[in-house]
């Protein structure tokens, strides 16, 4: 999957190749140093005085090595961070286009992990693994050549030993990787356990179950400690293997090389140089499995990132450059049916059946009905967050599917049930669609939503921060703020999804009464659980089990003596009473 990163990598392609070439050359420079050391040692052994040149040569090579390393690594790292930034922007841009169905099926934590951790894994691969791979390959290619120049016999003797060390090192590193995954998993379950426990601490204490939970926790920590100890042991074994390997190799150098020196086949300087080559090889062998590890991680990470990137937006926008005139505010629904799908994509029983309804410009329509009647679904369809299963929805007589989303969003404002606010100032939250709005219009909207007094009661007025780093709003205040955020847009159509549920009856009624005068000639469609709110409407639509069972105004419906009349007279709908009672 990692190859799919390529389009994002492309702008950096040349830079990266250059960086890697430079990093390759590091090892040529490095390999030359032992040669001069050899000369130096041999000069000293002969009690020659010419070591100034060799010392100077080593110093020069060291400086060169530093410069080359510095340049190569910097370039390489900058490429990786540039790539990660590009990937993050692209992923976020794509996430912004995805719809309800996608978000319903994905967990927020998982999406964040993809945008942050998975992209970081890809970045690590480009920064660490590529570099290590280059080192490994270049040392493996270069060092043996230089070694063979000093002593072919010794090189041939050491080669099998080296390969054995590399293989066992790789094997152990793989075991360590698995042990560390296990340790991480145990840590995860330990964290989960504590989190669940703390969330339920009241129940635990209410049932006097503390000691039992403590014992349970102790068991989990024992498992975690065991996993940790396994990991430590594996790491110690790897350390030991590497030490033993390098010890054995220098033993061969000392023994065999020593006798070669005695026979005059090799100089002492060459023997010392040999030792240096060995340590060069050992230092890369030690990490030889990390590139593989980084690659596997990055590959999985890329797969996870691109799975999101491959999701198609559920709502397909039309590319229409026509400039639409402001909407008249007429919405009509023809034979509309809809059903949600479960996680595997199989449709669930329909939520709406064959609904037809025309809402005239300027009308205030209330939709009431029990939980699960399909009220919120209908509003989501009207705002085109969902697509109709059958039938169609029109704005000013045009099918929603043929209108660009931007025009629809400008025409329809939707106050959702959960009144989600952002951790920003009150002003920013109310003028959310356009931060440039003047304070006067923000105040006007706050006023209409009965929020002005609340804002005045905060020390900093409109610039009061709300949310995590600011004041915490009550449920009712949140609802009013989210209402103000919609009212400020003065869209031809306003959809209210049970937007007064957290307000006391009086405030709700007050807002509704103002709404009428404020939004005259503009269309408002409101869903409500409270029958009391519906009486302000021009028309009341009673929805039950996805079908319209009654329509008419308050008086008409009362006269009909049907379901609505029942609700008004004897409110025993199986609705919960919270928060009114």
């Amino acid at each position, binding site marked *: 999957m990692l190859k799919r990163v390529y389009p994002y990598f492309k702008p950096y392609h040349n830079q990266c190749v250059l960086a890697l070439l430079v990093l390759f050359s590091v090892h040529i420079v490095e390999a030359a*140093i032992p040669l001069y050391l050899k000369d*130096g040692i041999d000069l*000293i052994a002969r*009690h020659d005085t010419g070591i100034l040149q060799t*010392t100077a040569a080593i110093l020069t090579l060291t400086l060169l*090595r530093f410069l080359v*390393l*510095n340049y190569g*690594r*910097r370039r390489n790292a*900058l490429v990786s*961070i*540039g790539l990660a930034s590009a990937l993050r922007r692209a992923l976020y841009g794509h*996430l*912004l*286009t995805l719809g309800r169905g996608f978000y319903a099926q994905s967990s*927020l934590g998982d*999406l*964040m992990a993809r945008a*942050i951790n998975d992209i970081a894994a890809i970045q690590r691969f480009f920064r660490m693994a590529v570099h290590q791979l280059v080192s490994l390959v270049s040392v493996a290619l270069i060092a043996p050549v230089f070694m063979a120049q000093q002593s072919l016999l010794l090189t041939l003797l050491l080669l099998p030993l080296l390969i054995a060390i590399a293989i066992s090192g790789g094997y152990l590193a793989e075991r360590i990787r698995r042990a560390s995954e296990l340790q991480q998993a145990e*840590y995860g379950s330990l964290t989960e356990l504590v989190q669940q426990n*703390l*969330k339920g*601490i*009241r*129940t635990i204490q*209410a049932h*006097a*179950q503390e000691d039992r939970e*403590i014992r349970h*926790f102790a068991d989990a*920590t*024992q498992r975690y*400690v065991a996993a940790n100890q396994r990991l*430590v042991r594996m790491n*110690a074994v790897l*350390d*030991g293997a590497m*030490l033993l390997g390098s*010890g054995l190799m*220098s*033993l061969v150098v*000392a*023994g065999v090389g*020593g006798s070669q020196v005695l026979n005059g086949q090799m100089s*002492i300087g060459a*023997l010392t140089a040999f030792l240096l080559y060995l340590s060069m090889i050992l230092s890369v062998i030690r990490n030889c499995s990390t590139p593989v590890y980084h690659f596997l991680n990055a590959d999985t990470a890329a797969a996870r990132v691109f799975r999101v990137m491959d999701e198609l937006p559920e709502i397909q926008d039309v590319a229409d450059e026509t400039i639409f005139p402001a909407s008249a505010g007429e919405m009509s629904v023809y034979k509309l049916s809809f059903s949600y799908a479960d996680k595997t994509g199989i449709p669930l029983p329909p939520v709406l059946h064959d609904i037809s309804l025309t809402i005239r410009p300027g009308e205030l329509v209330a939709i009431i009905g029990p939980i699960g009647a399909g009220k919120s679904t209908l509003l989501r369809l009207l705002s085109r967050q969902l697509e109709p299963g059958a039938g169609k929805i029109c704005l000013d007589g045009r099918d929603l599917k043929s209108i660009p989303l931007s025009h629809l969003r*400008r025409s329809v404002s*939707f106050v*959702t049930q959960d009144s*989600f606010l952002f951790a920003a100032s009150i002003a920013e939250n109310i003028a959310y*669609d356009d931060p440039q709005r003047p304070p006067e219009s923000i105040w006007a909207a706050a006023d209409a939503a009965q929020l002005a007094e609340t804002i005045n009661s905060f020390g900093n007025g409109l610039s009061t921060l709300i949310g995590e780093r600011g004041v915490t709003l009550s449920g009712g205040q949140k609802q009013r703020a989210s209402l103000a955020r919609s009212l400020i*847009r003065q869209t031809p159509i306003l959809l209210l999804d049970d937007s007064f549920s957290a307000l*006391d009856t009086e405030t709700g009624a007050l807002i509704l009464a103002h709404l009428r005068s404020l939004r005259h000639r503009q269309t408002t469609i409101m869903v409500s659980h409270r029958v*009391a709110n519906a009486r302000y409407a021009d028309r009341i639509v009673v929805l039950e089990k996805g079908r319209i069972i009654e329509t008419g105004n308050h008086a008409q419906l009362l006269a009909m003596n049907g379901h609505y009349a029942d609700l008004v007279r004897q409110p*025993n709908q*199986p609705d919960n*009473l919270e*928060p009114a*009672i």
Partner: protein
Amino acid sequence: MTSTNKTSTSPRTDPFDVASPANTGFVRNIWRLRRWLKPYRWRILTSLVFAMLSAAAAVLIPVVFSRVVVDDILLHVSNDAVPDLGQRALTQWLSAQSNIQPLLAASAIYLLWVVLRTGFGYIFQTLFASAVLAGINNLRQDLFAHVEHLPAAFYDRVKVGQVLTRVTNDIENLSELLSSIGVLAGEIIPFAVALTVMLSLDATLTAELSPFLLFVALVTVGFRRLSGPIYQRIRETHSRLNEHLHENLSGIETVQLYQRESLNAERFATLVQNNRIEESRAIRIETAYYPIIENISCLAVASILWFGGQHVLNRQTTLGSIVLFLQFSDMLFRPVVMLGYQSSIIFRAAVACELIFRLLDWQETLAVPSQPTQLPSDLHGRIEFKNLNFRYETGEPIIQNFSLTIQPGENIAIVGPTGSGKTTLTRLICRFYDVPPDSLFIDGIDIMDIAPTEIRKRVGVILQDFHLFPGSVYDNIALGNPSVSRADARRAAALVQALDFIDALPLGFDTVLEDRGNNLSQGQRQLLAFARAIALNPEILILDEATASIDSNTEAAIQSALSKVIANRTTLIIAHRLQTIRDADRIVVLEHGQLREIGKHNELLSRNGLYKMLYDAL
């Protein structure tokens, strides 16, 4: 850190108060850790002995190579004035004893040291780590046990996430600290041994190399100074990114409905760019520092060659010494680099340590009577509130002058607007908080004279956010109480009509609840909570009715279970469902913590007061 016990008047500081910085002393905190490490002190001491043995062997390896092999065997320049730590004598002895060539004897001794070094090093690493892991784990368990017993008032104030961080993340940091002390010991002991040997072999050459040590130390300190603030800014820009993502993905519906996509994408790009700038700064520093460190050994090679060469020419030292120094140079510089690397771990751990102890020292308990009164074995279940006043530690009065006598077996429904004190009232009976004396009685006994655990064992509670425990269905009903037999559990389940679904589970009562009951529906979990609450047949039952929407079948099942559960039992229900309210013997209407109205449904309706208003608002 001390805290005042059961103050309810002045706001207190918390163990999570960021205003008071972590500065009670790193050394003192580390010293306190000895309590948990003490059981493992012999293991730690033994491991340190092995670390020293391993270091000694590590130093002998190059001595054999340079002194014996190079000087004595290859060059025959051995000079008795130059110390060799007895290796030459050992070689000669072995060579004479077993009648083998000196080179072979030297190789054998070399091999011996290599094997010993590896073996001792392994023992040191594993022994040390196991002691640290076990010791820190004891601390973790003590910390968990401590937080588990902190009273409800504590959890009202703090965020669960903060407590979680202490028990998991911070303990982890601490464990890392102790491990890194081990790593440092593994580096510094060979360093000290090597330095001693180098000084004894050639003090002048050692002195001539010491500027490098200083250089490495300075560069490392400089790097830490420069990079510290940058790393801090990287973390900040990173959490901005995280926050933006979290917030805007949570509110994606709002983002899309208000057409904020392009503005958000722009803002995100800025955040990404800020992060990139800081990361690039760090990269520039890192790619300067690490190559310097990696080139130090090359520099050392050059200088050993230069200075050592002079010494050999002056006959002050042998070529073997130069070879020896070349091999030692790595041992000499690594500890300094490691120290720099470990310093950030140490800093993080110091903060973690402070925070952990602050929480561990946090003493907050309910006022437990010194000689608690036992509740009678056959409780009548009469509850009396007498002019009860209550407020949370920092807040407004929640319950004011509340008086009410609940007769044995009576069913009381509590209704009232949000924030009227309904939940508080039930929590007080569960004895989650201290109440003023003489204001709340169970069967005529002041609740403050009864041990809190005693009350919680005798009062059945079903909270709204009930919690299922890991374990089987039976475990969840019996909750480890030996007096709840399987038959009792079955009876309780049958009473609340949970038997059908439990028997339908793969292993019935022995089915293990996955992930705390995630394999059950919301309604089933609630029925299970009912069964648990009545398994012990408590005389008093407290119930906070769930407000979550559930389908009508489950709704009916729960309603019918409820009516069976509350029959012939003193019950206090925070009622959200109309049916529950109507079925109650009396309805208590609360507002602003005061009893406003009390009576039966019809009486209250005809009174045309608050109840009527709440009811009409439906």
